[in-house]
Every structure is written in C-alpha cells, then in structure tokens.
C-alpha cells in the first residue's frame, strides 16, 4: 500500500517533469540557420538564430534613433537585418555575427539580440598564424558569452 503510494507519487513527478521539459523545449527552441537556409524558406514569427558574415558596406547605424541595419551573408544568400540598439563590441563589417530574432513578413529579419563572437571564421586573416588554434582556444576560454 505504502509502496504503491510512493510509486504513484514518483510517477506523477516524472510525468510532470517530462511535460515541463517538453513544453519548455517546444516554446523556447531556437533554430540555427544560415542566410541561404533562411531565405529559402522563411517562416514569419518563428524564432531563429542566423549566423553569417556582416557584409562590408551595409552597416547603417543611426545613433539618434538607435536603429541598426546591416546585411548578413554566407556567400550564397543574404539576409537584411534590423535591430534596435547599439552594435555590440565585437560587431563590425566583414566579421561574423549571430543574430537572434524572427523573420518579419515585410521582408527583413528583426533581431532582438546580436551575438558577435570571437571564433575561427570571425578572425581577421592576418591573425591566422602558427598559434591560431591556441589563440582561439584561449579566447574561447574567457569569452564564453
């Protein structure tokens, strides 16, 4: 009798947890896509993370209105991005950036968050020396966000 009670209790907890994880994942999952993947089949309103290179000559920053626009490219397709807020420290033309947000039916990507990251593809070419790998690892250790 007692054992049954505990089993039922345990079962309820496990089920509740499974449901919470399922609901949590389905509500907050964000898909990583490349500009080509996104422009092939954009779904308006769905949460995406788009990673690519900030195309040189496309960054426009209006300090007064805090409007930032630029184009992300992966060499094959481009995605126009709009963001409200200051460009982050590591952000720049010709560098890599990951933007999180959603596709707007008006034909641009509305970014809520820009993650400009230190990493391989994002380093300027002249940095790629003998210590390349080590440098990256070091950078990564400290700048994990």
């Amino acid at each position, binding site marked *: 009798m*007692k054992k049954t009670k505990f089993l039922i209790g345990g079962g309820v907890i496990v089920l509740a947890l499974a449901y919470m994880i399922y609901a949590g*994942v389905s509500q907050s999952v964000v898909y990583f896509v490349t500009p080509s993947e996104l422009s092939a089949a954009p779904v308006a309103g769905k949460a995406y993370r788009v990673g690519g290179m900030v195309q040189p000559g496309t960054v426009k920053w209006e300090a007064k209105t805090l409007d930032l626009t630029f184009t992300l490219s992966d060499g094959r397709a481009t995605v126009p991005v709009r963001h409200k807020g200051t460009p982050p420290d590591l952000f720049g033309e010709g560098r890599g950036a990951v933007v999180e947000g959603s596709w707007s039916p008006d034909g641009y990507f509305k970014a809520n968050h820009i993650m400009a990251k230190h990493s391989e593809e994002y380093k300027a070419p002249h940095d790629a020396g003998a210590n390349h790998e080590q440098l990256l690892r070091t950078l990564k250790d400290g700048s994990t966000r």
Partner: protein
Amino acid sequence: MIPELGAAMLFVALALALYGSVAAGVGGRTGRPALVESAQHAALGVFVLVTACLLLLVYAFLTFDFSVRYVAINTNRGTPFYYRITAVWGALEGSIVLWSSMLTIYTLIVILRHRRNARELYPWALSVMLGVLAFFVLVMAVPAPVFERLTPIPPDGRGLNPLLEDSGMITHPVALYLGFTGFTVPFAFAIAALITGRVSDFWITTTRRWTITAWYFLSLGLLIGGWWSYHVLGWGGYWAWDPVENAAFMPWLTGTAFVHSVMIQERRRMLRLWNVALVVMTFSLTLFGTFLTRSGVIASVHAFTQGAIGIFFLSFLSLVLLTALALLAWRWDALGAQGELDSVVSRESVFLLNNVMLVAATFTVFFGTVFPLVSEAVRGVKLSVGMPFFNQVNVPLFLSLIFLMGVGPLIAWRRASADNLRRNFLGPIVVGIVGAALFWTLGVRSALAVISLSLVVFVTATIVVDLLRATRARMRVGESAPRALGGLLLRHNRRYGGFVVHLGVLVVTLGVTGSHAWSVQTETTVHRGEHAELAGYRLRFDGLRASEESNHFKVTGTFTIDGARATGAVLEPAKKFYPQDSSPIAYVDYRLGVMEDLYVVLGDFARDGSQATIKLQVNRMVSWIWLGGLVLTLGTVLSLVPERRRPA
C-alpha cells in the same frame, strides 16, 4: 631550461601518482602498512612537484618568458603585476595546473586527518585520490602541455584576455576549483567503502566536513562568477544559463542533494545506495563540466577546433562511471536499505522529495545543455534552447525546493502527526499568506514575485519559530535569553549552521526575485550637456576623454548625476581598446546600493566627443545576492565548528 625542468617534473609526478595509487591499493588489499606509507610519501612527492610546477609557471609569467607558448599567449609586457599572476590560470593549461595543485593539497590534508581514524577505508581512498591526481597530471603533461616551447620566441606576448583583467580572477577560479576538487574526497571514500564492503555509514560521517566544505566553495565560486558576469560583461545580468555556468551548476545541484541525503542515512540508515550514486554523480559532473567547457565540444556548434583533451576527459569519465557502476553492482546486496519510509508525511519523505527535485533540476540543466549537441549530431539540425527554457523549467522546481526548505527541518521524523504539523507550520503559513497579501497591496503584480517572496517569508518564519521555541526551552531551565540563544547556536551548531545557510539562500532568492521583477533599463543617445533619465536618476553627459593605459587605450565618458537622486555623483563608463583585440571592450561603471544599483555602459560614441550612446540600467536588489553569499559563509563556518556535545 626552466620550462624543460617543469615538464620533466610533471612526468616524475605522473609516475609517482600512479605508483602511489597502486601501492595504496595493494597496501589496502594485503594490509601491509609499509606500502600505504610508501604511497603517502609518493603523495607528498606529487604535492611538492605540482607546487613547484605552479611556482615555475608563476615565475615564467613574472619574468615574461615568452619562449613558453602558454605565457606568450596569456600575457604581454603591459600586463600589470597581479594580473600576470592570475593569468597563470587564465586559460586551459594553467587551469588544469591549478586544479591539480588543489587536489594535491586536499590529498595531503586527507593523509594528515584520516591516516589514523579511518584505517580500513583510508588506503583505498588514498589510492582513488592519487588515481584522480594521476589523471590530471597526465592531462598537464600530454594534451595540455603547459610548458610547451614556442619558436621563434616572440618579442612580446599576445596578452591576457582583457575580460579576465579583473580582481574576480583571483578568487573565482580558486573558489570554484576548491569546490570541484573537494568533491573528490567524499567520492574517494565512497569508492573505498564499496571496495572494502564497509558500506555502512562510516564513510558518510567521516566525510561530512569535506562535503560541506566542497559545497561551500562551489557555491562561493558560482556567486563570484555571477559577480564577475555582472560587473565585467556589461549586460547587467549575473546568470545566463551559459554552458560554462551550467557545467558548474550541475555538480552544485547534486552536491546540494548529497549534503541533505547524508543526513537521512546518518539518522535513519536509509538511502545507502542513493548516497553512493549521488556522490559518484557529483564527482562525474565535475569531470563532465570540465570536458564540456574545455574540450570545445559546445563551441563546435559554432565551428571550433577540437583538441585531444576532450578524448582524455571522456575516457576518464567513462572509466570512473563504469568502475563505479561495477562496484555498485558488486555490493548491491549490502547497499540494500536498512530503514524504511514509514509515512509520506515525514522528514525522510521531505528530504527525499528535495533530492528528487534537485536531481530533476540537474537533469533539466543537463538536457538543455546537451540537447543542442545531440540534435546536431543525430538529426543534423542546429538549434538551441536558451534562457527561457531553463527559467521556465527550473523556476517551479526551485520554488518547490524553497517551500521544502521550510518544511524539512521542522517536520517530525518517521510520521508527522496532525498536531506536529499544526504546531510547526500553522503560524508560518499564516505569516506567509499575510505576506503575500501585503506584497499584493504594496503593488507587486507579478504572480511569480508574490509567490517567491511569500515563500521566503514562510521559510524565515519556520526558522524563527524553531529558534524561539528552542531558546524558550533553555530559558525555562534558568538561562538568560542571549545565553540561551548563544548556547543553542554553539551546541547545536550543525542544525543552526544549516539554518543560517538556508537564510543565506533566502537572501539570494530575494535578490534574484527582485532583480527579475523590478529592474528597468533604457538605451539612449545624448549630446554633450544633455540628460539621460531613468527611474528618477538624471545623468548629464559631460564629454569624453581618451587615455593611454599600460596595456590598452581607453575612452572614458563622464556622466554627472544632477537629478533628485544621488546628486553630484559622477559615473565614468569607458571603452577599452586592446592592441591584441580588434574590437573594444566595455568597461561598466556603477553605483551599488542595497536596494538598487545604477549601472551605465558606454555603447557607441562620436569621435569628437559630442555625443554618446549609453545603456542605462537600474538593477534592483542585485546586492542581496552577494549579501546572501556572506550569510552563506557565516552559516558554513558555524556548521563546521567542532560540535561541543557528544554525538547522539
């Protein structure tokens, strides 16, 4: 010459650690004390060698020995003196050195403390500790060679990651690693218990202080990490559910479960199997965390080169888990529970439920951290579950845990009668509900905040009820009130130390709740002489100035507060440009307060200094998180004081 000396010493240390591990094991098996003694000498040798390596590395940093690759990457001639020392553990290789070094210290203390009082378990525990140590020395020697040379020798180094030029770098890694490595001790004793078959409660009581110490340092490391994130990274938060944070948080969760479940075993002879499993899990999670954050697995989602170190950690982790599982299976019968749960409404059940919740939280954190990896590997779909997932799933779990924190210490063992429940909880529940109503009328409209705050009130009330009752009982036999309270804290320091730790957790909870519910922020561009305003603060932008620092170039904005609040104060957020980095780094300025912090980040600026874009935040009650850490410290110290009374 010195780097070669260091590298050679590492290989000797590796041989000694391996020898010691085997010798202690054989000594334990055959009961030959001479072998165990020999293992102790080996442990001492490893300690000396690893310490010497650490010192050599410090020396290499202080003398700018750029022929050592690790030094060249993590320092340059402009790096200030104290950051040259902290740079020693500023990256992968050095952090393993720090880890090993702490493990050698722990091993020595274990030898000093336990070689006489834990005769049967001790040789095996020593063997396990030296085995773990051997692994870390192996990592230092082979996949992460800290003394590796660099040719040609560069004239100057690259420099420490600028984000790590912070005082938190002195304390954070040290505390965190003292926590991580600390769990090796209860793990070693658990394995020793399994091997010798003495799986009763001796290993638990022997390692109680060790477990609490490790738990405390891990908590401290997490809090200092939060402080670093808050005042260095410039996003105004302290916890982002980043894989690195999760990696340290998971062992904390299972460690917390372990700290509680051992009490049930001590008191009721239950949960033997569970406790061994928990400590194995905690120790494995410290390894897993290191694997996750140091191997580049997580980063590989964003294209990152994977080194050999991942293989080393994964192999060792598998070895640990397989060995532990085999031992568990071998001792399965002996581990069968002696006591039994009598009722669902009892202290045992509440503690068990607390454990279930903590392990559930561990699982969700684990799931959220590795799910993206699994998805990418299995389905080829790159995705992530960020902060919303972790918050959504964990907040209910943590709120339940806080509730249990109020119930657990007061509810009766075995079976709680209706009378016991009424006597202990009626008052606190009423106070909690009144608190909820009060917060609501005061204008708190977030349901989550109201629930969280009233739970804090409820738990505080249970602690007060308990203290008052116990004090009164002592006063009845003629003690004065302060004397009664003091005597209580000292005589029953384990129990009341635990209460103080709980209070610390409550204070942290208030900080987390407050900062989520009431923080506000704005982003704006101002011209010189113009004001930025937020929550009653008015900041006047007075201009920019540039300066040359020892290892970077700095642009500082000056903002004077001239509104109704904090008039006259000046905030100077800056941007630092490091030559080794192509992009600048924000330097946050802030005014910390008990109820709120004013927090300013300099974003963009015009080169002529005429305008600046700033992010302005008023972060509420964040300081409570750090204050909670202080309370936590007090509670831990209190609970570690040797007990005055004889154990019951």
